């Protein structure tokens, strides 16, 4: 089953199903989305990435190596610093909420549902575009996303944000930042070469 810890407002943000991307529009390997929202001193950061870019596969673990990779990913994303860094004036508030698909053995409904979900268009797209040998894979018809949400308190605004996930996970080529504050919005594509965004007006 999926490992989840829920804290207040975070409960809504992270998906409930094991395969979070089932009804999502976009899923591009190497491309993660980092959302930040600010209300007064409260800040919520949500990270969503294709599982493939984190652990190198996107299906039920088939051997011990893959199971270890998922456990490792779980441990890594629990630590906010591995995903995102904010100025020192911001302090983490509460536990992170994390969703890593296919984690654990006693799984039931979620995965069956995912496997039934047949989307041939996606399967074709994958096998032609990202070079992975997905079409011989029995799980080729599903996408899976890893998600993590963190809550912060920033009393003096947020001057900048750094997407440390780009350094943590070699499979990530870019992170799209969408930050929404009371007076400002910042949308920026962050890359390993420039992982930091200035949050003017936050």
């Amino acid at each position, binding site marked *: 089953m999926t490992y989840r810890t829920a804290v207040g*407002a975070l409960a*809504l943000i992270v*998906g409930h199903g094991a395969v979070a991307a089932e*009804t999502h529009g976009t899923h591009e390997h190497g491309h993660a989305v980092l959302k930040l929202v600010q209300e007064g001193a*409260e800040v919520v950061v949500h990270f969503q990435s294709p599982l493939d870019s984190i652990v190198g596969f996107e299906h039920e673990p088939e051997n011990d190596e893959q199971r270890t990779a998922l456990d490792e990913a779980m441990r890594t994303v629990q630590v906010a610093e591995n995903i995102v860094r904010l100025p020192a004036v911001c302090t983490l508030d509460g536990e992170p909420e994390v969703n890593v698909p296919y984690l654990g053995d006693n799984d039931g409904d979620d995965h069956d549902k995912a496997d039934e979900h047949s989307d041939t268009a996606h399967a074709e797209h994958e096998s032609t575009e990202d070079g992975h040998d997905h079409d011989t894979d029995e799980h080729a018809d599903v996408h899976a996303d890893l998600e993590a949400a963190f809550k912060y308190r920033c009393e003096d605004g947020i001057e900048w944000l750094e997407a440390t996930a780009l350094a943590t996970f070699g499979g990530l080529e870019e992170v799209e930042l969408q930050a*929404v504050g009371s007076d400002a*919005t910042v949308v920026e594509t962050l890359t390993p070469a420039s992982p930091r965004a200035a949050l003017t007006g936050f």
Partner: protein
Amino acid sequence: MRSSAILFSLAAKSLLNRRLTAGLTVLSVAVSVALLIGVDRVRTEARTSFTNTISGADLIVGARSGPINLLLYSVFRIGDATNNIGWDSYQEIRARGEVAWTIPISLGDSHRGFRVMGTDDGYFEHYRFARGRALAFSDGDVFVHVNDTVLGADVAESLGYAVGDAIIVSHGIGDVSFEDHDELPFKVTGILARTGTPVDRTVHVTLAGIEAIHSAWATTPRARESVVAAEAVEEELKPDAITACIVGLESRLMLFGLQRFINEYTAEPLMAIVPGVTLQQLWELLGAAEAALLVVSILVVAAGLVGMLTTLLTSLAERRREMAVLRSMGAGARLVFGLLLAEAVLLAAVAALSGVVVVHLAMLAARPLVLAEFGFYLHAGLPGGFDLIVVAAVTGAAGLLASVPAWRAFRLSLADGLTVRT
């Protein structure tokens, strides 16, 4: 100081003497400068205006299509919706705990070229523009009855409507309507104060009013009474669907949670966008085109300046005598050099300044057209920093370029102009 004053007055007089060529040179440089400044102004004005059109809205919900498309048709009335939101889905979103208020939007009709929008009281209460300004009435009040209508400032002004007038709303968005729903006249109950946004060009009616236009209800005797409160016929004229809705949240922290709920909504394919984020994505999309336009206009300025250099060089041949007379009267070679530089700088400065003036006047003139066609308001503000930079750069570049003919004149001997060539 004194000598440079003499220099510039000499240059000005010399230019006046050749006013036709000088005038044409000024014209060509002025046009190029106007183009450069115009491109930049329109770019920044469009951004400001789009940003100012909606404020305080957390999400915009519509049928699943493209985020930019949804933003353009719901807020800026540009383009059309691909699909609608079911009334039941709208009610479900509206009833959610994290939702503080909603504004329904129902588009698709027109009145003499102006868009008709069906909405409810929430619009007048919650819609914000230009960093939090609320809508205000310049005359009259909010609609109450099925066939009441509230007009935007431009609609009332250009069609000459006043509170109490009766108007016919028709189906479709063209200027000419073939199928007038003339069974049901609408009464103007209010006129909104000018906002400088597409609101000014919108005819607002109740959601029941939109239904009434399209149903047989309009022909019933009850409709003729024209005092039917919209609420009284709510069930009878309940819409099946709306085009989009604007959502305000109790707390912004719930933003991405609700967005996800709507994007994953299973009863029908819906999409929720954060207006600010989508607007940024739109700018990103337009960024390359804007940069290309800017580069082209910079090149046009360069072409204008090269044209000026050509004119100066050609005129040198004709002015051998003028130079020689100056030299024979005691002017040094340096003065001749300075004179040509001063001429070029004067020409360029006059041209650049006229370019700035022209572009600001043109924007003032184009404002109504741009608002009508593209949905944004061109503020003809005072010349800003960019204008100053352009004027300084063009003048500086002209001075630099003019050093070529000036150097040639400097090198010409005194005898050159006085000797008659055979």
